[in-house]
């Protein structure tokens, strides 16, 4: 099968869906400009014109409400934010309007609205350009939350999100954009609410979100060298959540580590820990462990940024403690960074 990048996969999904369904349109700050949201909105202006691919004023709050209204009236808007942090300006429209839209209509109308938001990281993005926020959104009933990791999922899940009849928040980690992998040509759907086993194993389950899947796969390959077999579950959607895939895996391995691309406290990792303790209580060989961002705003300077973000090393060290293993020598290991990019495939 041919290989394309995560970014190209997003772009294909957009082109194909806009071709298929004339009610789909895309908008947001910078969407049609020459940088094309890192290339993910390439060709859309040229193919579909300025009525279906449009720039907006810097008015996230209002523009979210505009998308909501357009969705209620039968269009399928895709609103793009180049950083998740800017999406926060629309919190009122999301939490007070979009989330309860269908409920407020007694279920008779809904809002098929997709919101793409990019998670920034590195080169001093700092505390206003690096947030994840998926747990905050997942907390609010009525919003679906999707976090693709692989190029295949980027395409299949985005198509599913566009065809879904309710508001979907679609979070794309910037560092996933460069990876290349096999993606089917033409239209296909990865259903919302289905997780994916990224790697099979028997000793311990890592439930990882977004970029942390890359770190988990790296950590698993390091641990494999000393005979530890890791299974990695990528839930792909926080809402709806594929609980069964997590529970089945942990029932098999007896151990669970959650590596979330977000702050730990009150985060998605706590939700997984609660689920696992409830469903796998008697089968656990040890407590569920969680890793994520340091409980601070994200700093700018590199060595503090490195301390802020967990990586494969953090995962290896945590698992060594969970399995009571001595620390292995990782001095020869090259970890991913802004300069050492992950190019895929998984």
């Amino acid at each position, binding site marked *: 099968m041919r290989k394309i990048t995560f970014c190209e996969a997003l772009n294909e999904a957009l082109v194909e869906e806009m071709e298929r369904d004339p009610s789909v349109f895309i908008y947001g700050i910078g969407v049609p400009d020459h940088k094309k949201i890192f290339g993910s909105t390439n060709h859309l202006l040229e193919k579909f014109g300025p009525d279906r691919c449009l720039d907006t004023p810097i008015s996230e709050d209002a523009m979210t409400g505009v998308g909501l209204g357009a969705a209620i009236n039968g269009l399928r808007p895709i609103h793009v934010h180049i950083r998740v942090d800017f999406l926060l300006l629309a919190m009122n429209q999301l939490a007070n309007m979009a989330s309860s839209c269908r409920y407020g209509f007694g279920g008779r109308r809904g809002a098929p609205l997709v919101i793409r938001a990019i998670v920034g990281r590195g080169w001093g993005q700092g505390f206003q350009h690096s947030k994840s926020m998926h747990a905050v959104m997942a907390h609010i009933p009525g919003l679906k939350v999707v976090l693709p990791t692989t190029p295949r999922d980027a395409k299949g899940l985005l198509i599913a999100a566009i065809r879904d009849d309710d508001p979907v928040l679609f979070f794309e980690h910037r560092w996933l954009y460069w990876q290349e992998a096999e993606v089917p040509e033409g239209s296909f759907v990865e259903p919302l609410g289905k997780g994916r086993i990224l790697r099979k194993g028997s000793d311990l389950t890592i439930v990882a979100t977004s970029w942390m899947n890359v770190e988990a796969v790296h950590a698993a390959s390091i641990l494999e060298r000393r005979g530890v077999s890791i299974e990695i579950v990528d839930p792909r959607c926080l809402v709806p959540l594929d609980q069964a895939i997590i529970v089945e895996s942990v029932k098999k391995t007896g151990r669970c580590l959650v590596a979330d691309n977000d702050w730990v406290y009150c985060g998605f990792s706590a939700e997984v820990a609660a689920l696992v303790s409830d469903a796998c209580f008697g089968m656990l060989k040890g407590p569920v462990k969680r890793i994520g961002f*340091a409980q601070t705003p994200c700093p700018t300077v590199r060595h503090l940024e490195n301390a802020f973000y967990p990586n494969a090393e953090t995962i290896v060290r945590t698992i060594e403690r969970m399995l009571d293993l001595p620390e292995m020598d990782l001095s020869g290991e090259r970890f991913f960074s802004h300069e050492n990019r992950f190019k895929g495939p998984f």
Partner: protein
Amino acid sequence: MIDEAIDIYRKLVLIRRSEEAIRRWYGQDEMKTPMHMSMGEEAIPVGVCAALASTDQVMGTYRTHALYLAKTDDVDGFFAELYGRASSPLRGKCGSMHLSAPEHGMMGCSAIVASAVPVSTGLAFANRYQANGKLVAVFFGDGAVEGGVFWESLNFACLRQLPILLVCEDNGLAVHTLPETRHGYDSITQLVAGYRCDTWETDSTDAVVVRDLARRAIGRIREGKRPGFLRCRYYRYLEHVGINTDFDAGYRTEEGYREWLARDPVDLRRRLLLEQGVPEERLCRIEAVETERVRQAVEKAKAAEFCNQSALYEGVFAGA
């Protein structure tokens, strides 16, 4: 009088030399922070800050190099932070986008468009409440007026007649997007003038002209007890973020740049001082001194230590 104009020139030189140093050294990958360069806008913050008292307060955006240096004159602190060193009071946590120095009245910057406007309104509210006579000047781009929060803040400031100067640094661009694509109105100044405040406008690139206008605006704020809105036009020389030009990108032309470059804020002020009879040697001496200050600041920053990693957890809450 002339000494003030010369000091304004000195600030312009300091800012320009600092940004030239950034352009020169950025490629070494030691300043790991996104740079939104001020080149082209220098006359605005320098002019407005020259009209402010040192105890007055300012806030800015991510495009904040000129404002920071104009308000603080602290080139050592500036480069220490861009290099992320422990010698910066911000200790590298903030980088180029979030410079602040409250001891100099530099009350911070936000990289979220328009979000410093309400906070500055709150600073002004507190200053009025405490009757301390301080004035607040908040700097923002023309994109900021597209945010609802701008109008909500303006309304409140005008309602409560707060001592605040709203400075719109209008380069006609939001990243790569032109006003035609963003604005359902013709004149921002006319819109704002419908509120109970005074409005002012200039497209001068002479910091002394900007200062004089800001003085009049500030005089009205203090005496008339009304907020002021000052719109200053300028041309952004470089790309939105980064240290390069981008005339090949197609959203604007190099001719536009050349027109504005003919009245570049630094060159223009130099020419005017010479015309007023200031000896060239005096200006050359200033240029040499500021160049040397920048050189030393970069050198000191490069030689300084990083703070240790435990600093990550410090300063989240008071006393911790």
